[in-house]
């Protein structure tokens, strides 16, 4: 088999024919509305022959070149993710009939496609997005199916636009791996390289001659010239570390004055993968469906969480999130850069913000390295939690056995299921709980029982109101268990301090029960419980029973109370800020509002508890639960997947930091 073949220019349709004969529809570049876009092609005549694009920050203009080349345009507006990660896909269809509910996945069988004209940078982007979407055993089945159904015909660049910087991102312009076929366009035809088993029969069917050495040489020289033209515009070496320590750079505010937070950069980015799920239903809420669409960290709603809070209220925060994610925390998460240097975000920014300039200003090579905000991750990225059976579309139907009123606005649903994965839940994990027609909140597990789970839910919005209004016999759809639970083993042989605020006691109850189940393996056990008022205390009878035990210390405090309350009043840290115990022997588990956890962590540290032994569970907008929707990112972490339980040491200064 020769190293390369030659396909005469006028025989390009034969290649198209071979791809069609392989059962594929062809997607490739064509002209629409003043730009090159990737769309379905019926013949090679629809390619943008003789057209190129001049790009600059905030500007893209087609121009006629005068020659007959088909692939002289840089990259199209739309990236290939439109086909591997469509902007909108239906996810589930649900039906609710009396108390029964059915939720089914409606993911489509993806079409077999051939991507013709994939650039080296885009090939890298496909790989990067695949790692993000298919990180580990869980991940997104739709993306995997679409990616698997695509055959890639890459085309090496013979020109560069002013916004290209693949050279700096080590993603091009040469195509070195990942494609099935690689074309190099010369004036009279294409040098064709076969780079995968799938490519072999396609080329074999064409009966091409071997490429002549001079043809191969011209192809090589051509792409080498492109490398020269682009140069090395971004100092990528050490960039991730420099950015990580530049979180307080004044330039973030300056760029935020120009940034429109319109999200265009993220949507044209070939690696950005964030999504949101919308719910639709009929007027009775009986037939409901969900669909997933592209979303962006530049939108305010993306950082919204419970309690009218938002983790990235300012445009500055959102720009910083995007840029540091692309160039820095992506390494922590996936072991690579999130940028391939395609330059789309530069050209398609409506006000011409150029990431190359921003990077040079915010993280210059000469920048002094400040303290590292969070501990470095291994070079290959963080290992995702094992979530083998959890996908965004897999639901388990559980039945409400009974409903236990807890406080005026919260109840415990005792759910029954025989799903093994759900029953295998560990303390500290959570489940996504869906009622058709409602949004899907993450709910932490408040008890793990044989044959089921307890969920303690406070009514604070329509979805939780609907859940707390359920009665015995009703059904809910669960996805989970999700997240990394409490590391109870780490506390064996040590004292245990449990600090709970409000509804935060719910995810701690399984820890308490697990520890008491093996009481002799632990030292002193101390429970510190805070609540808003005496009426808002959770699991009162159980806690009173614990307080009666000699081997457990229980103290509780409320924020405010009337004269009838003779217990303690104040904030939860007052329960132990003057206590006599030695924190160095203790492991602490903390859950409550973030502000309360911050104060608790400080007080625990003052009491000598090591930051590696202070564990807390964070609240973010967990939506997919498996790290593919992007909502719950916090620095290098996906809270849903890497947490929600973290040690204070793991979080570093990311914990409690504004705007992350």
């Amino acid at each position: 088999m020769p190293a390369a073949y030659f396909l005469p220019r006028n025989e390009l349709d034969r290649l198209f024919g071979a791809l069609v004969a392989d059962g594929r529809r062809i997607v490739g570049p064509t002209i629409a509305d003043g730009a090159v876009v990737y769309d379905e092609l019926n013949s090679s005549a629809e390619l943008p022959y003789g057209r190129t694009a001049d790009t600059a920050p905030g500007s893209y203009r087609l121009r006629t070149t005068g020659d007959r080349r088909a692939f002289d345009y840089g990259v199209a507006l739309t990236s290939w993710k439109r086909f591997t990660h469509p902007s909108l896909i239906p996810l589930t269809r649900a039906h609710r009939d009396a108390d029964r509910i059915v939720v089914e996945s409606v993911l489509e069988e993806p079409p077999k496609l051939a991507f013709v004209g994939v650039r080296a940078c885009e090939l890298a982007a496909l790989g990067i997005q695949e790692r993000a979407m298919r990180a580990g055993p869980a991940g997104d089945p739709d993306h995997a199916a679409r990616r698997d159904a695509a055959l890639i015909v890459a085309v090496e660049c013979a020109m560069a636009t002013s916004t290209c910087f693949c050279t700096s991102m080590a993603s091009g312009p040469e195509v070195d791996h990942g494609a099935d076929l690689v074309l190099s366009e010369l004036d009279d035809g294409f040098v064709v390289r076969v780079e995968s088993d799938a490519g072999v029969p396609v080329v074999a069917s064409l009966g091409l001659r071997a490429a002549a050495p001079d043809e191969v040489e011209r192809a090589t020289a051509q792409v080498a010239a492109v490398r020269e033209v682009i140069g090395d515009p971004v100092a990528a070496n050490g960039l991730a570390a420099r950015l990580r320590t530049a979180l307080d750079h004044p330039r973030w505010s300056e760029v935020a004055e120009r940034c429109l937070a319109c999200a265009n950069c993220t949507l044209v980015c070939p690696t950005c993968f964030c999504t949101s799920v919308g719910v639709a239903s009929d007027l009775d809420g009986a037939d409901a469906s969900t669909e997933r669409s592209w979303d962006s960290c530049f939108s305010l709603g993306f950082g919204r969480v419970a309690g009218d809070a938002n983790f990235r209220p300012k445009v500055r925060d959102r720009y910083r999130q995007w840029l540091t994610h692309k160039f820095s925390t992506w390494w922590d998460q996936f072991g690579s850069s999130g940028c391939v240097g395609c330059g789309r975000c530069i050209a398609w920014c409506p006000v011409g913000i150029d990431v190359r300039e921003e990077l040079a200003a915010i993280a210059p090579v000469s920048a002094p390295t400040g303290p590292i905000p969070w501990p470095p991750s291994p070079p290959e990225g963080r290992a995702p939690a094992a979530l083998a059976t959890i996908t965004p579309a897999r639901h388990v139907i559980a039945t409400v056995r009974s409903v236990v009123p807890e406080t005026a606005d919260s109840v415990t649903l005792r759910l029954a299921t025989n799903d093994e994965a759900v029953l295998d839940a560990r303390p500290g994990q959570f489940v996504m709980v869906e009622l058709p027609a409602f949004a899907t909140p993450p709910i932490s597990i408040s008890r793990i029982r044989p044959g089921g789970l307890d969920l303690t839910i406070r009514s604070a919005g329509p979805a939780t109101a609907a859940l707390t209004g359920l009665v015995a016999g009703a059904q809910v759809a669960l996805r989970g268990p999700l997240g990394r639970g409490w590391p109870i083993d780490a506390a064996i042989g040590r004292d245990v301090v449990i600090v709970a605020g409000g509804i935060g006691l719910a995810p701690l109850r399984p820890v308490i029960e697990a520890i008491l189940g093996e009481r002799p393996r632990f030292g002193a056990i101390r429970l510190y419980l805070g609540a808003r008022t005496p009426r808002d205390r959770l699991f009162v009878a159980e806690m009173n029973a614990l307080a009666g035990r000699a081997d457990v210390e229980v103290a509780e405090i409320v924020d405010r109370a009337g004269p009838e309350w003779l217990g303690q009043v104040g904030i939860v840290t007052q329960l132990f800020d003057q206590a006599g115990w030695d924190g160095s022997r203790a492991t602490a588990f903390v859950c409550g509002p973030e502000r309360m956890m911050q104060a608790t962590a400080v007080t625990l540290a003052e009491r000598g508890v090591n930051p590696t032994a202070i564990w807390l569970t964070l609240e973010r907008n967990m939506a997919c639960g498996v790290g593919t929707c992007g909502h719950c990112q916090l620095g290098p972490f996906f809270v849903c997947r890497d947490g929600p339980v973290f040690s204070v040491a793991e979080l570093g200064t990311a914990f409690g930091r504004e705007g992350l």
Partner: protein
Amino acid sequence: MATRDLTTVLDATWFAADLTTEATGRLAALGSLADFAEGTIVVREGEVCESLGVVVSGRIALRLRLPGGQDRTILTVHPGDVFGWSAVLPQPIATSTGVAVMPTTAVLFDGNRLKLALAADCDLAAAIYGRLLVSVARRLTATRVQLLDLYRPGNEPW
């Protein structure tokens, strides 16, 4: 109770635990132990606060009167901590009502005598005022956090 015994009592409290032996001794000489039955009002909001107290055992609730309404407990004082710190202010007017919500024992220091003693002894003053400052600062922080009403049910995005 003898002064020496009071020294032991004070040594066991957070408030006095870090004082030098000498300082504790001098402090003990100024104080006396008092037992309060449940329900005893130990200091009344708006009235002269005569004594600074250190709770030895039991619990004292600090309450504010709501306009036209019930009392609201805003803080409880635990063993080791102080109440009636207004007693050492130039204008010793109590800012809240202290009620023993269970049988409580406390060491009481007459405000005027204490002020005179502290004025005369800079080392003791530095130690005592420092301790008071920590206690008051903690309460200030706690009050601010309570103001945030962290546990209120907020709107959820779902």
